[in-house]
C-alpha cells in the first residue's frame, strides 16, 4: 500500500524533464566546485613534490607531536562527553525536576556560541590576568597555553553532541523498560548496563563519532587557548595554519591530508551507522 502511495505522490509531483536535469546539474556543479575540487587540491598540493617529501613532512617531529595531541584531545573529549552526555540525557528523560528546560538550553549553548568566544572565556577565566589566574600561578598549575586548556576548549565545543543524540531517543523510548527492569529486582547499574546501554548504543556511537570529528577538526576555540607552542600545544589544524603561514605549502597540505583522511573515515563510519542501524537511532534527528 505504502509503495503505491509513494508512486502516486511521485507522479503528482513530477516536474518537466528539463527542470529536473537543470536542478540536478546545478547541485553537481556546486558540489564539485566547493567540495570535491578543494579536496583534490589538498591531495595534489600535498603530493606535488613527490611521496618522499610528503612522508618527510608528516614525519616531522612537530607534526607527529600535533598528531599525538589531536588524538589525545579527541580521546579525552569523547570519554568526557560520553559520560556527561549519558548523565544529562538520563537526568532529563527519566526525572522530573525544576530547571530542566534551563539545563536543556545550557547543553545547546556551545552550538550557538562562536568557538573563538569559547576559547576567550577560558583565557579570561584561567589566563594570567584572569579570575583564577593568580591562584593558579601560585600553585604552579598551567591551564591556558597548555594541554588542559586545549582539552577544556574542545570539550566545550563538543559538549552537545552526545546529549543531543541521546535525549530524543530516550524520550521516545520512555521509562517503561527501565521500570520493568527495576521491578524485576535489577540494581541501578544492572538496569543501565543490561537495558539502557543496549538500547542507546548506536545513538551513543553516532554522537561520539560527531563529537570526535569535531574534536579533531576544531580550530577557533583551540587556537585561542593553545598559544601555538610548536611541538607542545599544537593540534593538527593549528599545525596546518602555522606551516601555511610559513609558506611551507607542501607540508601544510600534507598535514591537511591527515585531517581529510580522518574526516573521510568518520563519514564512512557515519554512513554505515545510518544505514545499518537507522532504526536504533532517533527518528527525530534534528540538526546534524
Amino acid at each position: 500500500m505504502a509503495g503505491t502511495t509513494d508512486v502516486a505522490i511521485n507522479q503528482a509531483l513530477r516536474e518537466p524533464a528539463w527542470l529536473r536535469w537543470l536542478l540536478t546539474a546545478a547541485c553537481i556543479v556546486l558540489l564539485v566546485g566547493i567540495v570535491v575540487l578543494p579536496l583534490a587540491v589538498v591531495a595534489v598540493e600535498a603530493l606535488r613534490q613527490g611521496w618522499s617529501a610528503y612522508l618527510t613532512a608528516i614525519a616531522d617531529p612537530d607534526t607527529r607531536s600535533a598528531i599525538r595531541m589531536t588524538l589525545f584531545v579527541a580521546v579525552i573529549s569523547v570519554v568526557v562527553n560520553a559520560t556527561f552526555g549519558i548523565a544529562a540525557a538520563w537526568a532529563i528523560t527519566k526525572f522530573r525536576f525544576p530547571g530542566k528546560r534551563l539545563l536543556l538550553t545550557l547543553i545547546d549553548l556551545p552550538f550557538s556560541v562562536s568557538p573563538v568566544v569559547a576559547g576567550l572565556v577560558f583565557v579570561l577565566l584561567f589566563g594570567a590576568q584572569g579570575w583564577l589566574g593568580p591562584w593558579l600561578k601560585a600553585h604552579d598549575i598551567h591551564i591556558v597555553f597548555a594541554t588542559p586548556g586545549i582539552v577544556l576548549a574542545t570539550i566545550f565545543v563538543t559538549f552537545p553532541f552526545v546529549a543531543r543524540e541521546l535525549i530524543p531517543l530516550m524520550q521516545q523510548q520512555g521509562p517503561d523498560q527501565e521500570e520493568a527492569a527495576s521491578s524485576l529486582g535489577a540494581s541501578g547499574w544492572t538496569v543501565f548496563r543490561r537495558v539502557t546501554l543496549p538500547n542507546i548504543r548506536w545513538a551513543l556511537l553516532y554522537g561520539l563519532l560527531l563529537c570526535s570529528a569535531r574534536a579533531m577538526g576544531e580550530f577557533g576555540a583551540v587556537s585561542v587557548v593553545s598559544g601555538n607552542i610548536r611541538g607542545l600545544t599544537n593540534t593538527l589544524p593549528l599545525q596546518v595554519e602555522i606551516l601555511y603561514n610559513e609558506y611551507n605549502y607542501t607540508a601544510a597540505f600534507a598535514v591537511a591530508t591527515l585531517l581529510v583522511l580522518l574526516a573521510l573515515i568518520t563519514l564512512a563510519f557515519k554512513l554505515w551507522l545510518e544505514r545499518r542501524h537507522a532504526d536504533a537511532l532517533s527518528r527525530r534527528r534534528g540538526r546534524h
Partner: protein
Amino acid sequence: MIENPIDSHRISATFPHRLARDAAGNHANVAHARTRDEGRRSRAGAGSQKEGGMDIGIEGLHKRFGTFPALRGVDLRIPSGQLLALLGPSGSGKTTLLRTLAGLEEPDSGRILFGERDATRLNLRERNVGLVFQHYALFPHLSVFENVAFGLRSRKRRERPARADIQKRVLELLERMQIGELRERLPDQLSGGQKQRVALARAMAIEPSVLLLDEPFGALDAKVRIELRRWLRHIHEETGYTTVFVTHDQEEALELADRVVVMREGNIQQDGTPEQVYEEPANAFVYDFLGRSNRLAGNVRGGMFQADGCGATFACAEVADGAAQLYARPHDLALVATGEGLAANVIDVRQLAGRYVLTLELPQQSRVVEFDVGNDARQALPARGDLVAVRPLRYRVFAGSNGDVAKKG
C-alpha cells in the same frame, strides 16, 4: 466443598461466557466443576498459604499531581489469590493506584501493606511486584528466554539461582505460558498476544508478591483480546497469584475478574463481584459506565417514578421524593400496547451485527433512547416515523437531576 448447581446455573445464565471458563479453570485437586463464588471464597480463606499469594492492604491513599488530586483516600483490602479489576474512565485514578502499588509513584499519605509488611516506602526494586506494562516493555535486544530470565539473572550473586536452575525454571514457565517454542525469538518477531505472554512470564519469573497489569489487553485487536482474557483467567487459576489489573473496558473487567472496583475522580464508586456491580450498580455513574444505557429524566413521588412528558409510572420504593433519573439497558426494553408504556417516536432503525437497534425520541426528554429489539419482536419491527409504546422490563432509578453524574470519561 459445597456443590451448588443452582447458583452456578444462575450465574451462567447471566454471564453465559463464564460457563466455559469454569469448565476450563478447574484446579487439579478439584474433581467437580465449581462456581467462581466458591473458588473465590476458598482462595480468600486460604490466605498466604496459597502459592504466590499475598494479602494486599491499601489504607487512606492520597496522591496529587500538582493541583490535580489523582487519589482521594482510597481504602482497599485484596485477599490473597484474588483477581481484581480496577475499572474506570481515564483520569479516574485507577492507573495511579496501580503505579502506587507497584512503587512507581509515592503516595502523599496512606499506607500499603503486603501481608503484614508495610511496603509504602519500599522502592520498586525492593517491592517484588510483577509488573506488566500496557506496551509490554520487553527488552528488544534480548531473546524471549533472556527476557524471562532477566529477573533471576539480575539478583545479587548470593541470592541468584544456579545457571542450570534458572534454565529449568524459565523453560518450565515458558511451557506453562505456551510459548516454549518462541524462546530464541527477539521481541520484534512476536505478535502482540505473544509479547503479552512473554511479559507475563517475565513478571512471574521472580515469584512476585502481587501481579500488577496495566491495561493488559489495551494494545491488542478484539479477537486476540478475548482469547488472551480466557488464557489469563486460566493461568491465574493455576498459579493463584494475587493479581490487580487496570482497564477501562467494562466487559473485560466483568468477564475476567473475581472482583471489580469501579473508580471515578480518585474515589472508589463501587467494590463488588462482577455480578453485583452489573446487577446492582451503586449509583448512576456505575450504571452508565458498565454498559450502554438509556436515561430518562423525571420525578419520584411516593415511590413512583414518572418521566417528564410521559404518563406511565414506575415503582421505585427506595428512592426519596424529588428529581430522579431512570436508567435502563437497551436490551431491557419491550414494545407494549399503546397507552401502557412510554409513547415514543421511532427516528431511526439500524441493523448492527445481526441485531436491530431502534432510536426513539420521547417528548420532553433531551436524550434519545436506544432499543435493542429482541428476537420475538422482530416480526413486527416498527419503521422509521412510527409511533410506538415501550416499557423498561428492568430498570434502576437514582435520585438527582444532574445529568453529568453519569457522564462517561
